[in-house]
């Protein structure tokens, strides 16, 4: 089942055209890696998909709903914006944990705030609210165990290594059950000895159900984990295919040149 359809996506910053017409689709449960040299537009693409940048042209369809259409000038309501935002999850290169909250609070805060917005009308609703808060708490603990950080729940981010911080960030993104989980160079800010633990966690998320888009420079990782690989160059998709096709037998000379430099 198709979960994402990106069509004709364009984005310029001042005079510089960073995305020059991007088209691709993604099936539910599929893992897509996006590779390419710096400045090829892959991070901008990911930021557009997470609504952190507004594309100049094109459409983004998530599931069967058009989440973005550059031709549609109607202003979205706050509710609509949030709904489409929550369909996507994003793990940043620089983690962006909230330093003033404990690890666990980093996970729970967004869900708690969402819950708090619905004012309870009566005693029964208050009781369910309490149960919901407890459920949020339990979920956070489960996810922390999943990324191997159950014992760090009450620590502050500064006390964690970069690898641990990124694992917290992954757990935080998972808290909201996004349709599509995106990673923006999740290991690029880490020392080499810390990338392993983060990649292991990402690998453990591949269960055939979860849809993921991973922008990465870790070629070997991309090759092993992905169902499909996109190679981007100069704002366009230069090559697209299975890992075997793109890494084993690249058609485009640009891809070949990029991969040979990387090796």
């Amino acid at each position, binding site marked *: 089942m198709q979960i994402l359809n990106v069509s004709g996506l364009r984005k310029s910053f001042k005079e510089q055209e960073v995305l020059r017409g991007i088209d691709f689709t993604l099936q539910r449960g599929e893992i897509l890696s996006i590779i390419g040299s710096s400045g090829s537009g892959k991070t901008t693409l990911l930021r557009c998909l997470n609504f952190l940048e507004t594309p100049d042209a094109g459409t983004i369809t998530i599931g069967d709903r058009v989440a973005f259409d550059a031709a549609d000038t109607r202003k979205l309501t706050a509710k609509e914006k949030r709904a489409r935002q929550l369909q996507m999850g994003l793990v940043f290169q620089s983690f962006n944990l909230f330093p*003033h909250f404990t690890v666990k609070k980093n996970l729970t805060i967004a869900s708690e705030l969402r819950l708090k917005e619905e004012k309870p009308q009566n005693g029964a609703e208050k009781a369910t609210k309490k149960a919901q808060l407890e459920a949020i708490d339990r979920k956070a603990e489960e996810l922390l165990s999943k990324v191997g950080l159950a014992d760090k729940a009450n620590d502050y981010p*500064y006390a964690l290594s970069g690898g641990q911080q990124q694992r917290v960030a992954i757990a*935080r993104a998972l808290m909201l059950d996004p349709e599509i989980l995106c990673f923006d160079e999740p290991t690029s800010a880490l020392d080499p000895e810390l990338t392993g633990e983060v990649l292991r966690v990402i690998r453990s998320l591949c269960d055939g159900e979860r849809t993921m888009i991973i922008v990465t420079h870790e070629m070997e990782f991309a090759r092993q984990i992905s169902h499909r690989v996109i190679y981007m160059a100069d704002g366009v998709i230069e090559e697209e295919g299975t890992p075997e096709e793109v890494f084993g037998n690249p058609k485009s000379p640009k891809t070949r040149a990029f991969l040979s430099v990387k090796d």
Partner: protein
Amino acid sequence: MSFFQILLQLCEGLGYSVMIFLLTLVFSLPLGLLICFGRMTKIKPVSWLFRIYISIMRGTPLMLQLFVVYFCPYYLFRIPLRNMGDNWMFVSVIIGFALNYAAYFAEIYRSGIASMSEGQYEAARVLGMNKRQTFFIIILPQVIRRILPSLTNEVITLVKDTSLAFAIGQIEMFTMAKRLASSEVSMLPYVGAAMIYYVFNLIVATAMAKVEKRFSNYVIK
């Protein structure tokens, strides 16, 4: 009059000084945040308006500003000051102080907000928080933590500045000291006032250090 009696008399004025101090903080801290928003807005004319406001408030003496507030009902609206009520003097002191300190606080808030990384806003956004939640729950607590040392500086200055209220005749501790000094023909009341200001500030500084400590449960990297 013994030194002890002088101190007792000064403490009568101290009550007003403390009230000016507290009321100024209560009004100027939130007002400063609003002015900061005005100064940082993308709407150019509004931003400039607040820029000019801050510039004037910081560029002219507080004592003069107190005169302006105190006399403005008469010069602007031809309302005799005696019709302004018995409290007008005190009220105008509070208005003057609050307007002045809010300008300074606005710039301190601005420095703190500007020092926040874009990543914090983006993280809050992808987690579905709205603008209000992002600011008050993610950004502001971190900003306060960062600006506390500069805030402490201003608050300590405010303790000493309360003595400027004497310029328009408002009774506070410095007014008392001045009166006592002339009636007793002695410098002792000034010595006493200096001591009380110092102790006042010692308490303020200790309290602010406590607040700072409360906010430093985490380290900023």
